[in-house]
């Protein structure tokens, strides 16, 4: 028993660190070297693009928070897509309670509705999957990878919801302790000397966390970089004023 527990502790701790490292380094590399550093030679903003930077900020905020560009097209995709992202965000915020002490009020606020949030998220994802399958045009362009992320996230949500119910419910204090231990700066060093953090003995929790790690590792190599990439999209983030303010082509800066 002790042997298996040790293996799980070792495995899970290493996986968590590896995943966070790959995620952070991958995103940093993408954003800094591939998006920020790659020049955009000409101004290609697109109507309705505001003519001042504050306007551009507002437009981008509208796109990010309310999916304004997407809302111009099919409503079903807009609604399902927005609900999915919004509930995802709420659940991320809710998970802060494992990382911050004392737990901020805003986080405890959703205690009662968290199950509902999870279910809405699942339903919206089911719509997204079914739509991919049924809508002829979308099915044509859908790749296996697109289903893969959807199912991966769904699995994370399902295991997450199960974790809150018997008989899968782990010992919450053990979970918190494990996470606190992982966050402590000395834990990675201890890992090297074969003294891993103590994972709660709960199969469902290990699965949940394992899947999250998988998602983090997959993230920088996949279309999921749209989340950070959007902010560098030249049709959206450039100010519509090339006549009045000269835009210098980065190629010419030498």
């Amino acid at each position, binding site marked *: 028993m002790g042997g298996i527990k040790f293996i799980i502790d070792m495995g899970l701790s290493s996986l968590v660190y590896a995943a966070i490292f790959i995620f952070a380094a991958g995103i940093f590399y*993408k954003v800094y070297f*591939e*998006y920020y550093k*790659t*020049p*955009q*030679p*000409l*101004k*290609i*903003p*697109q*109507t*309705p*693009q*505001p*003519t001042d930077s504050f*306007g551009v900020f507002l437009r981008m905020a509208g*796109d990010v928070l309310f*999916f304004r*560009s*997407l809302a*111009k*097209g*099919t409503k079903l*995709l807009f609604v399902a*897509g927005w609900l999915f992202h919004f509930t995802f965000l709420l659940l991320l915020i809710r998970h802060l309670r494992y990382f911050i002490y004392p737990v901020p009020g805003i986080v405890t606020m959703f205690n009662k509705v968290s199950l509902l949030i999870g279910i809405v998220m699942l339903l919206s994802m089911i719509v997204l999957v079914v*739509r*991919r399958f049924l*809508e*002829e*045009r*979308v099915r*044509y*362009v*859908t*790749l*296996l*990878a*697109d289903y893969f992320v959807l199912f991966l996230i769904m699995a994370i949500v399902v295991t997450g919801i199960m974790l809150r119910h018997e008989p899968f419910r782990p010992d919450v204090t053990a979970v918190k302790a494990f996470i606190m231990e992982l966050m402590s700066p000395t834990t990675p060093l201890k890992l090297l000397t074969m003294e891993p953090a103590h994972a709660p003995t709960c199969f469902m929790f290990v699965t949940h966390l394992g899947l999250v790690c998988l998602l983090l590792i997959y993230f920088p*190599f996949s*279309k999921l*970089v*749209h989340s950070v*990439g*959007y902010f*560098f*999209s*030249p*049709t*959206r983030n450039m100010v*519509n004023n*090339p*006549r*009045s303010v*000269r*835009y*210098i*082509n980065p*190629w010419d800066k030498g």
Partner: protein
Amino acid sequence: MAEEKAPDTKHHSGADREPNEIIQEYIKFEKIKYYPVELTGDIEVPKLTPDALVMVKPQLLTSKEVLARLGYPENGLRPDWKEVFLAKMDEILKKYRSVKLFLDICVRCGACTDKCHYYLGTGDPLNMPVARQELMRRVYRRYFTVQGRLFGSKFVNGEELSEELLAMWYTYFYQCSECRRCSVFCPYGIDTAEITMAAREILNSVGLVQKYLHEIIDKAQVIGNNLGMQQNAIVNALEFVQDELIETTGVEDIRIPIDEEGADVLFVTPSADFFASPHIESLYGYAKVFHQAGISWTMSTHASEGGNFGLFIHNYEHMKKINKRIWDAARELKVKRVIGGECGHMWRVLSSYSNTMFGPFDYLDPKYPRPQHICEFTLDLIKRGALKIDKSANEEFTVTMHDSCQVARGLEMGGTEFGQFEIPRGVIKGVCDKFVDMPEHTIRERTFCCGAGQGLLGDDMLATRVKGAMPRMQAYHYVKKNNGVNFLALICAICKAQMSKMLPTYGFPMEEVGGIHQLVGRAIVLGAKEGI
């Protein structure tokens, strides 16, 4: 004995053929019959019809001289094309954030799938913007991502380079008019036009150069305009226009000035305006506006072309060289303002890119936007009452306006983000009483391309042009049926050429097409201004 061991060439005949031979077979040009659909006024999204338009291939440029001047391979597809292809693609990925980013962040949500006029016209799945991008993305995933390089094309849904893939590129990247409509609806603003421009330049680098577009790029650089008119031909054409003007208006001193140093305004416009129909009617209109406003102006034989086909491929040098003529002429003629005539892509290059390529324009009059659009200029005059207008001259028309995509989805006009819609409409309303807009989803930033933009206006592309014009024709039919519209006002030379061919194809009279300044020209009352 040794002889028997010699390689059996017959056996390998498929693999041993030159790449150029293989590709020529794939992209052989054929004349294709085209059939316009019956118009109902509604734009319906068609069912997927694989390969509906796969047989439309543009003609290849084969003139060695021209290819050499443009710096592209002269003998068709290069034997070592795969290396060149990947090197070029790598270069573009490092030089254009747009391309790099757009290849990365598409989630294949499908929001753009029913937004392209070529898809709506054909049902060909590869005309769905995202599917068009995927043609490039498959190569990107295989050769330019870690996972693709490590695990191969199967794992990442990529594709190995092959002549067949190249043929698909050559087909479908010349069925995109870079109109950017898809991008309006994309949650991340992914602009298929950027991908298409990159793809075309990659095709050029390996030796697949489309004829129509590149012949024009060459002419504009070598001779100075898209039609290849020499200086004296331009002077003759413009003098002829001036004679016509004097004759029809009876005004002795109305002029089309050429190369006049010290004029206030340098006016540039597509060379098609010099004699094509209905383009020339707008030229009459411009001349009347300048005449009546009493502003000295000039055209230039050096900058005899406003259009800039260099925009249509990711080859900055071509575009810059063509644009340079305008700014050289502006300095040489010592003008104070530069005004651009009616043309979609010309306006985009002029307004969005000139300042980057040849600014700052401190030698021009800072009171006016630099450069300025003719509609901004005319509307200002109308508003100030500087022109005497007789709207009854346009009484017979109920007008609607086709927003040219490069104007509509390009830059601000009049300093506001929606000026490019309001200013041209303002001009029309200033000279006509009856104006009706086409349905909301077919105008303004959602406007449909005319179907022949950005290098697809050649006769070899007729099948594509007819299919791509369908949405606009439906919308026009709709307002014609419901509001009695009988004039389609345009602000783009390519739109004019395309529409004056498409209207008859779809069963409308050809005369219902014209430029906005054609209407202006009809309504202006020439002669001494009131109160003077």
